[in-house]
């Protein structure tokens, strides 16, 4: 089944808030081998001017993947997840994700392209606090391999 090109340009309502916890920040940082104390030690994070411990640079993927699921899990979109390969990922941080943040995310389908029998879907998740402060922009390109 082909990817539904009419989804290009679609924007979804904001997701339910994701509560950023200290222990999740620590767990994620440890899992990627991030040694910077700013992920683990509140006192040292505050000494650097942060409100609390901050997330490592790719932590936002946790929030973005929940957001992207709105598209990927929609049968109308025609994305066969068993054929999906991650093509590209981009993070732009307006400020670090910080423990205590409540983050909502708005998904936009930037493009749906067909090339060489494969489909490429680029999504953008705009992450902001529930107060409306922009935090991160996460852009992801998925490649959906064509059938053999």
């Amino acid at each position: 089944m082909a990817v539904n090109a009419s989804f290009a340009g679609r924007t979804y309502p904001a997701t339910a808030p994701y509560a950023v916890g200290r222990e999740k920040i620590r767990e994620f940082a440890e899992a990627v081998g991030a040694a910077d104390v700013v992920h683990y030690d509140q006192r040292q994070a505050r000494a650097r001017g942060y409100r609390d411990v901050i997330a490592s640079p790719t932590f936002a993927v946790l929030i973005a993947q929940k957001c992207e699921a709105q598209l990927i899990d929609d049968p109308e979109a025609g994305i066969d997840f068993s054929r999906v390969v991650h093509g590209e990922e981009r993070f732009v941080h307006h400020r670090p994700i910080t423990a205590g943040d409540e983050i909502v995310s708005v998904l936009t389908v930037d493009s749906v392209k067909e090339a060489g029998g494969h489909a490429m879907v680029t999504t953008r998740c705009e992450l902001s606090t529930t107060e409306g402060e922009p935090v991160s922009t996460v852009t992801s390109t998925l490649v959906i391999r064509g059938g053999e």
Partner: protein
Amino acid sequence: MSNTVLSISDVEVGQELPSRTIHISRLSLVQYTGASLDRNFIHWDERFARSVGLPDVIAHGMFTMGSAINVVSDWVGDAGRVVEYFTRFTKPVVVPYESGADVEVAGVVKALDAQTRRATVDLMATCGTDKVLGRAFAVVVLD
């Protein structure tokens, strides 16, 4: 605690960052699966991975991306200074049960902007002869 973020006066275009080797074991992948909630079977179940045509389990691209940036965070002195990070995923990192996999990560300063105090660092990540990240770069704010 004082913090020693790299000063722009100590950085020049062409400068190489200290490189490192990331060793990836099955435990690394299970740990990342739990932390990231990306539970795709291809990252921890070799029977499943083989059934979909892979040689063995493969690392999450996001695990490689998330680990490679440590080279930049540690160099700049504060992970919160990473304001942009991009990569393509060019080849999967295959992680055999016995040996695991080693990914070599190197970085070089590609551009400097004195006005915004930003440095752009190109990242190279290889596993054996495979380039596993493509066109990877990070932008950091220096002191």
